[in-house]
């Protein structure tokens, strides 16, 4: 099974490489470097190149966490409830703020009080489609992502016992958990199930369908002429389709595209603290801890040196609302992103990844004209439809579990 996947991704990389006009030897690097799972949707490749962009279908629902309206509603309450976290100040929505693209509009996610995160907060929109979550794919489901984020020291910093205890003292939650999960008391694992269920409804489908998907379904008026020209560049000269492909606009694989380290690590003491902490948290050798000066990305999972600086291909839908971009948020506009790729993976100061040896051979100067860059940006805007807005629900209040009469009776019975 694994072998088959590897073989396929080798083919994919080889085809992509030829398509991008690179040397065939580069395919070895790309392929060997990416022995990772690809979503089955991505397997359906055309013989001539990567899977073409395709309209977004329904989100996959795992059989062990079926969607019900009551579960989704409970998940929504929990998503917005900061008591699912350490000091009751930082919940999911704190860093996945609806008005900031269901993400956080700074380079690094804001993090738990007293900390700052070290990566850009990713939007929850369409996250349900991805086989793995987080920039390096460290969680294998939305459930596991919710759990990791709620508990991580620079994210929610919550512990199971106190979070479960809080929910038990909120009558509204006791009622809803009983209805949805059939338990007498809220169970922390069910919290992650409910939140994941809610997230699986937060997609750019239906009324939030993006212009590109309308176009791909046959509505040729959905894109402007400029955008259509941009699409041709996306699929051709600019080579974006090599990684941003298929239904998800992402190959769900990990690549080093040359993003330079965030300069905040050189200037911001708080960010330096988190940077070193993350070396421990993600798993690093002593030598690595001492020497790391940028995010090693997928390496922390695979521990293969050829995976340094690789991150999951970001999906492109909804990006009009999710600036800044890249795993460390170094680019604030789509224009900057296009310029970065056009320079072959260098920012305007000529900075690039600290791991040139793992940089994808697909990333080369593109030679785009100003008009082409504008067309490409225009096309990237077609990946976003109407903003997904939501009124934040009111937090259900705490209430004492016992009455004074209960307590007095227990005191008498001692």
């Amino acid at each position, binding site marked *: 099974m694994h072998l088959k996947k590897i073989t396929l991704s080798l083919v994919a990389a080889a085809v992509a490489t030829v398509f991008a006009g690179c040397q065939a030897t580069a395919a070895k690097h790309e392929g060997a470097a990416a022995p990772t799972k690809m979503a089955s949707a991505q397997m359906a490749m055309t013989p001539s190149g990567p899977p073409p962009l395709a309209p977004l279908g329904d989100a996959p629902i795992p059989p062990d966490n079926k969607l019900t309206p009551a579960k989704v509603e409970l998940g929504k309450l929990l998503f917005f409830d900061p008591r699912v976290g350490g*000091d009751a100040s930082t919940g999911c929505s704190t860093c996945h703020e609806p008005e900031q693209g269901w993400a956080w509009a700074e380079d690094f996610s804001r993090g738990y009080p007293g900390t700052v995160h070290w990566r850009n907060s990713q939007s929850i929109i369409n996250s349900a489609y991805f086989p793995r979550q987080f920039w390096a794919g460290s969680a294998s489901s939305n459930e596991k992502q919710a759990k990791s984020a709620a508990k991580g020291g620079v994210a929610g*910093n919550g512990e199971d016992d106190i979070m479960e205890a809080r929910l038990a003292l909120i009558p509204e939650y006791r009622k809803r958990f009983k209805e949805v999960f059939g338990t007498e008391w809220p169970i922390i694992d069910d919290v992650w199930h409910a939140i994941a269920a809610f997230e699986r409804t937060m997609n750019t489908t239906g009324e939030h369908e993006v212009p590109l998907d309308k176009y791909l379904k046959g509505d040729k008026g959905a894109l402007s002429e400029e955008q259509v020209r941009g699409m041709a560049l996306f699929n051709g000269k600019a080579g974006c389709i090599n990684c941003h492909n298929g239904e998800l606009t992402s190959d769900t694989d990990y690549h080093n595209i040359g993003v330079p380290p965030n300069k905040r690590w050189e200037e911001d003491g*708080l960010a330096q603290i988190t940077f070193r902490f993350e070396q421990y948290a993600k798993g690093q050798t002593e030598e690595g801890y001492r020497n790391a000066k940028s995010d090693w990305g997928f390496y922390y999972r695979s521990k293969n040196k050829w995976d340094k600086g690789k991150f999951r291909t970001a999906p492109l839908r909804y990006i009009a609302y999710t600036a800044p971009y890249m795993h460390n948020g170094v680019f604030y506009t789509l224009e900057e992103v296009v310029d970065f790729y056009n320079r072959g993976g260098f920012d305007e100061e000529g900075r690039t990844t600290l791991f040139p040896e793992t940089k994808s051979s697909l990333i080369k100067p593109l030679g785009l004209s100003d008009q082409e860059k504008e067309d490409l940006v225009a096309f990237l805007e077609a990946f976003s439809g109407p903003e997904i807005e939501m009124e934040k629900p009111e937090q259900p209040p705490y209430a004492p*579990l016992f009455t004074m009469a209960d*307590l007095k009776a227990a*005191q008498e019975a*001692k």
Partner: protein
Amino acid sequence: MGARVTTGRTLLAAVMGFGVALSAQAAEYPDIGPLPQLKIDKAKAELGKRLFFDKRLSGDAAVSCATCHVPEKGYASEEALSPGYPGNGHFRNASSLVNVAHRKVWNWDGRIGTNLNDMTREMLTEDYTMNMDMRIMQERVKQDPLYVKMFKDAGYGEPSNGSVRKAIPEYLKTLTSANAPFDTGKMSASAKRGMKLFKGKAGCIQCHNGPMMTDQKAHNTGVPENFDVFMDPMNHQAFIAFTMFQGIPNYMNLKRDPGYFNVTLLNEDMGKFLTPSLREVKYSAPYMHNGMIKTLAGVVDFYNQGGGKDSNKSKLLKPLKLSGKEKKDLVAFLEALSGDKLTSDKHVWKQPYPSEYEAIANWTEVRN
């Protein structure tokens, strides 16, 4: 000077047959007396002092050790129930830390019996106290140039979470009773009469014995529950988190603090709490594990009536029949166990902490 320990077991037979509380003999128990001297490493203690008062040692950098262990209050909590970590409350009164280094067992329920290093770890990391991921703590400390120097000067080398847990206990060794009239021999006549009652008629010495005035064992004295633990969901959530994590059966329905039961899971230990030290009690009100008694006079009244109501109450507790004068004398003695307040900068870190973390210069060039 070593602790004066007189077990006097041969006398045990002689006192049997009398009402125990009334016939308690000083010689039967380790005598009360001065505390042994502790050897203190100054540089390590100074570092520990800075750490003790530093809010950056909690998860959200909002509370320090001193938030619950208040110097003015004998390093105990001034509220009946400790404030705990932001977002929750607490379910017990923080004990005084004065002389804490002389203990062999810690926490009201005695769940830590190893050393202050473990105790420090427990308080730093528990979610309802300081909720600190110690990997973040270590990196915060390493980001503060003064800490880097202090760790080096103290002989610890590079700051690490291991040495934080050594330095704080070293500082705690400096929190020792100083100039208590009991130790200096300058007790009032009333206090002297009180001491006699303490060792005799009032029977306090049965549990409050040795230089620390505690047998460091668990007893049930029938202290009533503090209903604020359960009626305030902020406190109750800390109580539930604690009992859940400790593995106490039926924790959702518990309407009392299980105390030492947490350690043994034996019903006979339900509601037992470690005998607190009586040193510095003048400052550490309110009293008992849950702060239910506000004054020393109230504590004396409580024991004079034979403690509270509990089917599991210690057999040592009987009505004492103390007169009004005797009760006053006993309170005078208890007050004479308290010395100078440890609130000067010898014990309290009073310099400001940096408001933000300085960036390490040439970050890309230097090793982390």
